[in-house]
């Protein structure tokens, strides 16, 4: 009989991402349903507020992606009001954004996703000498002696024996889908811990430019930091050299740790190429070399690919009402003009209407409405956004750096480009992109230093700060490519206040429920056809969902003294 399995992270607090999968008799996923079970509703909170304050609210939607929402928000207000930011502000924003991307990808790989491929408990059985030989054969990274791995292993053993490895207690350790030898597991665990140190350093760039971290300061019209090479309190020579050191260390870590680990781990999994999904890819593009409006100069190109056809990248215009739309035929909202008709975000509506079961419940009625996420579509196509989409679009457009790195990874793994259309390909794309954004950090650092040398210290354009200079009504679109994909903020300003605000986040594209035609979004499609070894331990589902880097569990972080199991798996 067909089984239905449910993976729900926090059933106790309502919210977050829930996956329901129908399996056939051979435990292959026949259908999957992705549901966002918490309403975010930021649009309602922003109505009537001063548009210059919107970023400070928008950055609270998400626990991790604070600065990307702040960035998209100031960009949409500037677009509406016709504000051009000074060159320094453009460069600093790009540098901060490249920093965020790089840090986020590293943390995602090591601290969320690696444990879908790496068996921590198996590392206890590793031969530290052999681990050292392997580590030295794949990288010049200095922390690779037998003694280093032996010490680490003893520390892990100590934790397990004292019962403290309760901190990793809920893994599916020993699951047959884990394929790495104990020594590679040990190397990966070592780098899991090293990456923690590393991510603490890299984000100091946000503190330098944003005044504080987390929640760095953004500003409509520019950036709030002062530049003065000779001042103690401004961005000065000392701070710039600190940034340079962080960038040097970042590039070394990615080249010597992240990329070699990725290739080493992927080598054991290249037979597991499930999780491809919709095969349509979208990117708004980012990293403007001039202004955002001139999207031909974006270092990350804008475009769309349909049906995995890498020979054609189609032009994209998110302002065009016929291109980006959201419908709510399977979402707990209602539209005045009918739920199945897609609305462009400038015409968007946010009227919640919950018709689902009362929690706690066993199953969602997936024939009807089953998610708090809307269903975004590009020209009516379901699209995947994120690192794989961006890498494929850049690859198809012939970006030399991306072509080189993709070529290197594919040749080391001895697979063709078609292997990219998979969960593993998505994971590889994130690493490839991380190497690229670390390069962008250096690029923008160099740009900033060169610009300061010309004597240009300006970071803020105050021309239209005063609301009396604004038109009676105006609309704007602000975009960025967040670590997990295309993020758009659309604003309508009337009488100096926010009349309407709509946000389409990357995870809404990827995790959307079905559309009115019953067509699945990226998560749902990617899960289809995946064989499960043991439905009670749905490691394969987590692997594919994690590969998208979901952003859905961030609204609420209560401290639970009970420390109960969070992600629950049920077979019903």
């Amino acid at each position, binding site marked *: 009989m067909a089984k239905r399995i449910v993976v729900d*992270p926090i059933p106790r607090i309502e919210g977050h991402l829930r996956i329901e999968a129908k399996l056939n008799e051979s435990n292959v996923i026949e259908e999957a349903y992705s549901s966002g079970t918490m309403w975010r509703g930021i649009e309602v909170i922003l109505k009537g507020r001063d548009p210059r304050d919107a970023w400070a609210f928008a950055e609270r939607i998400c626990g*991790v992606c604070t600065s990307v929402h702040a960035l998209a928000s100031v960009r949409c207000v500037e677009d509406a009001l016709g504000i051009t930011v000074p060159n320094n502000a453009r460069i600093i924003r790009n540098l901060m954004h490249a920093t965020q991307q790089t840090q986020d990808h590293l943390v995602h790989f090591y601290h969320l996703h690696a444990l879908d491929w790496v068996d921590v408990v198996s590392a206890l059985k590793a031969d530290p000498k052999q681990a050292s030989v392997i580590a030295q054969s794949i990288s010049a990274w200095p922390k690779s002696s037998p003694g280093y791995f032996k010490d680490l292993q003893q520390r892990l053993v100590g934790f397990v024996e004292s019962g*403290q490895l309760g901190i990793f207690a*809920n893994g599916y350790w020993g699951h047959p889908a884990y394929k790495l030898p104990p020594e590679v597991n040990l190397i990966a665990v070592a780098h899991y811990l090293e990456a923690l140190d590393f991510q*603490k350093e890299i984000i100091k760039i946000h503190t330098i430019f944003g005044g504080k971290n987390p929640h760095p300061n953004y500003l409509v019209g520019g950036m709030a930091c002062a530049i003065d090479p000779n001042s103690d309190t401004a961005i000065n020579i000392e701070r710039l050299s600190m940034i340079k050191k962080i960038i040097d260390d970042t590039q070394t870590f990615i080249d010597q740790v992240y990329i070699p680990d990725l290739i080493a781990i992927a080598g054991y999994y290249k037979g597991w190429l499930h999780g491809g999904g919709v095969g349509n890819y979208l990117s708004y593009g980012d990293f403007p070399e001039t202004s955002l409006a001139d999207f031909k100069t974006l270092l990350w190109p804008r475009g769309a690919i349909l049906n995995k056809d890498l020979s054609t990248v189609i032009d994209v215009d998110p302002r065009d009402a016929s291109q980006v739309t959201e419908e709510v035929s399977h979402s707990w909202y209602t539209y005045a003009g009918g739920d199945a008709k897609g609305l462009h975000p400038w015409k968007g509506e946010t009227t919640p209407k919950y018709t689902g079961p009362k929690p706690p419940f066993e199953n969602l009625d997936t024939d009807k409405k089953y998610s708090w996420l809307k269903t975004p579509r590009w020209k009516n196509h379901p699209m995947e956004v994120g690192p794989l989409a961006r890498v494929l679009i850049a690859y198809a457009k012939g970006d030399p750096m991306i072509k080189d790195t993709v070529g290197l990874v594919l040749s080391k793994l001895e697979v063709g480009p078609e292997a990219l259309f998979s969960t593993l390909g998505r994971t590889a794309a994130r690493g490839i992109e991380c190497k690229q954004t670390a390069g962008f950090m250096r690029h923008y650092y160099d740009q900033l230093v060169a610009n300061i040398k010309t004597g240009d210290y300006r970071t803020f354009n105050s021309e239209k700060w005063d609301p009396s200079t604004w038109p009676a009504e105006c609309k704007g679109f602000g975009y960025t490519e967040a670590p997990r994909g295309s993020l758009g903020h659309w604003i309508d300003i009337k009488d100096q206040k926010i009349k309407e605000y709509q946000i389409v986040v990357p995870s809404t594209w990827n995790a959307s429920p079905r559309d009115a035609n019953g067509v699945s979004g990226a998560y749902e499609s990617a899960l289809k056809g995946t064989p499960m070894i043991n439905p009670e331990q749905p490691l394969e589902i987590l692997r594919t969902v994690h590969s998208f880097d979901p952003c859905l569990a961030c609204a609420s972080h209560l401290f639970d003294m009970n420390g109960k*199991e969070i992600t629950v798996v049920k077979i019903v």
Partner: protein
Amino acid sequence: MKYNRINVIGLGNLLYGDEGFGVTAIRSFQASSSYPDAVQCIDGGTQGIYLLDFIESCDAVIVFDALIPLEYERRVYLYRNEELPAFIHRKMSSHQMGFSEMIGLARLRGNMPKELVLIGIPPKELELNVGLSDEVALLLPEAVEMGKALVDGWLAG
């Protein structure tokens, strides 16, 4: 001074009613005190792993956060050190990284501060809304004072 570096961290989401308790508390803590630089106030929002540095880089940490206590009563709770659970759960998203996982990681790495205190109040309302419920707002000054008394003691001791 007993401790040279003290971090006071407020956690939570300002957009969800009482979930914003910790961040509101840290703002009130900061506004109503004038401590030396040894005491840093941090608005941690709902960041997870990115807060690890703030735990590991000092001698003592106070965290304000909405919490679910073992036995439920609406009052201010204070937990110290070993009373705090540390675990790393399997999760759907890196955004699910909670503070208890940071404690787990700091323990694994051998970087725990000498003192770690959680001060919290169980939420009444967790709806999309900026602002605390009356019940939680009423208890907030007491929570902030508890934090200040601890810091005063550490600075004097």
